[in-house]
């Protein structure tokens, strides 16, 4: 009996210790992964405060005299605000338009599926597998003929089309989580289809819609291929601002890092502010 009494706490203590260790190990692993992912960004920010010769030093310098030379040079050579404004307009515009088209599409597929729904969804997603360069010339010609080259409207249209498959997929998954009974109850109370979407579905799926919108916004902000190929100066977003500081001849790491830091700062701040909603939305339905 005494043995039994004395055994139980030992077992509990042991299991508690194992649990604590596992918890601690997971915590350390989490920190390591986070640091590994954040390291390139931290290094870029650090490099942006170095002089060009310090930026290329081997071995790399951790201690150096910080300077704002890179930022001053970037500011003197390019109109950051114009590029940033274009980024905001095309990213928000592309995302809003994608959501506008995707909500009815996802609603129809989630609540009124046919036997072709699954196939349609897969087909939509398959368009993402085509390398963009494969359609560069047709799109370029189309844009030229429609007068959309170097326009914000053109880039918004491209971003909408680019993100539409992912946005529809994510919204479809979120909408599937909404109980059909609620929508049916609404219908019984006389709600038509528009009311059903507007007053019942959208409020219920708002976390999912918000996280989808945020993801689409980030994808638009970071997109480089189309923005570099379809814009020149009037509608050029921050990706082109960054590209203009890469040089085939001469030292440019500090200036490029300063330009990149300035370009990613707004979207990083937005990401930090909304990270709770983003994670909640993503774990709510899409990653199930």
């Amino acid at each position, binding site marked *: 009996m005494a043995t039994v009494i004395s055994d139980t706490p030992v077992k509990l203590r042991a299991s508690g210790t194992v649990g604590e260790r596992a918890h601690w190990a997971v915590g350390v692993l989490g920190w390591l992964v986070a640091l590994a992912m954040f390291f390139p960004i931290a290094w870029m920010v650090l490099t942006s405060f170095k002089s060009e010769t310090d930026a290329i030093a081997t071995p790399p310098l951790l201690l150096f005299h910080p300077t704002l030379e890179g930022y001053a040079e970037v500011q003197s050579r390019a109109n950051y605000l114009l590029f940033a404004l274009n980024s905001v307009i095309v990213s928000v515009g592309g995302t809003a338009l994608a959501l506008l088209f995707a909500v009815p599409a996802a609603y129809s597929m989630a609540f009124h599926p046919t036997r072709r729904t699954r196939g349609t969804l897969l087909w939509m997603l398959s368009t993402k597998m085509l390398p963009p360069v494969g359609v560069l010339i047709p799109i370029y010609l189309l844009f030229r003929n429609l007068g959309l080259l170097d326009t914000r409207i053109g880039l918004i249209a491209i971003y909408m089309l680019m993100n539409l498959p992912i946005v529809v997929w994510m919204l479809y998954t979120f909408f599937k989580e909404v109980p059909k009974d609620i929508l049916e109850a609404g219908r019984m109370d006389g709600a038509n289809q528009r009311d059903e979407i507007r007053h019942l579905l959208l409020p219920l799926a708002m976390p999912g819609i918000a996280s989808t919108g945020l993801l689409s916004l980030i994808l638009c902000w970071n997109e480089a291929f189309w923005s570099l190929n379809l814009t020149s100066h009037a509608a050029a977003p921050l990706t082109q601002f960054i590209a203009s*500081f890469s040089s085939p*001849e*001469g030292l440019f790491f500090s200036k490029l890092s300063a330009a990149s830091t300035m370009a990613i700062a707004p979207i990083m701040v937005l990401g930090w502010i909304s990270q709770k909603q983003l994670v909640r939305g993503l774990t709510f339905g899409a990653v199930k």
Partner: protein
Amino acid sequence: MSVKASIASIHGRVIRACLLAGVASVSLAAGANAEPVSITIATVNNGDMVTMQKLSDAFEKANPDIKLNWVVLEENTLRQRVTTDIATHAGQFDVLTIGNYEAPIWAQRGWLEKITPDAAYDTDDLLKPVRDSLSYKGAIYALPFYAESAMTYYRTDLFKKAGLTMPTAPTYEQIRQFADKITDKSNGVYGMCLRGKPGWGENMAFFTMLVTAMGGQWFGDGYHATIDTPAWHKALDWYDGILKADGPPGATSNGFNENLALFASGHCGMWIDSTVAAGLLYDKKQSTVADKVGFAPVPTGSYTGGPTWLWSWALAVPVSSTHKGAAEKFVTWATSKAYVDLVAKTNGWVSAPAGTRQSTYANPQYKAVAPFASFVLDAIDNSNPNGKTAQPRPYVGAQFVGIPEFQGIGTQVGQTIAATLTGGLSADQALKSAQSATQRTVRQAGLAH
């Protein structure tokens, strides 16, 4: 005439009068506030181009009817962007920054405007090899902004320490021996830095020059590829040998900028590359070895006097431009003697665009601040881009082959050459594979049968 018809007639006259008045007022307003013509210039982010962008206010002040918009892109992105635009006649750009590789090919396709500057521009003052490389059938299609050839850079302190003297005309064999003697890997000093990054304008620029010196070329008569030949084997043997024994680690990642950074931070004993590096290595703000840099011509091999290296960044006007007059005005301004003087006045003579005008090299003020000037001029004068190789060749170009397919071919062969450095392929495998791939491409292009 009925009352209705009279009213309709009066209405018609009133509307026509209003419309005419409207059109007239719009025309007057347009005349009073004539909008300046906007021209868009596509360029790369090189030091000289940045200077041009900064000094362009002077052009806008002198030409208030012309407004300049700049699109600055990384070299490869710019090439892709500009090629797409010009091939589709989209007309997004009025001035293009192109090289002497593109200029004759695009001129032949009718994509570029012929440029005929006035007498004040003094076309004869342009260095002949540079002018010729930007011409097609005797007409100039792009004006040179700056030009470069290749030369050998070496560390005078390391040579002195090892008791070596750089000959006035070194051979590749001598360079190999020097590299072995000055390599000190334990102190991070590598005897030789060379371009190893795969690409037609990267490792293949140097390698093509090396092959020519070893008595080889890319194609023989009828565009028969001549890669799997003794000259290429000899060149590859030298290249692999020196980089493996005396080169920095990870040489296949090193292009111009990486080697510039290595040399400028004291890690290279020698470096054979573009003459444009001279000014950068001499600049104490960018180089820790500014007072220890020596210059020599590119080494020679068994075949001398053949093509070496000539590259020029030039400004051209595409036929798709909607403001050709304004564009040509800018192009001639940015490549004129007056512009060279403006740069010298603003940033000093050492910053003057190099490799384009004889008058720059005749200027004592330039020679005083650029001790490398005579090396650069000699290198360009002897670059011989249209010259003969050891065996007859059906193409022109110094460190490249002047055919549209070369971008693809050069990059593919560059990858196999890089693979010999990493140990992925033997020299035999690499050259055999490069030979068959190149032959296939020129056959598909209809150049060879």
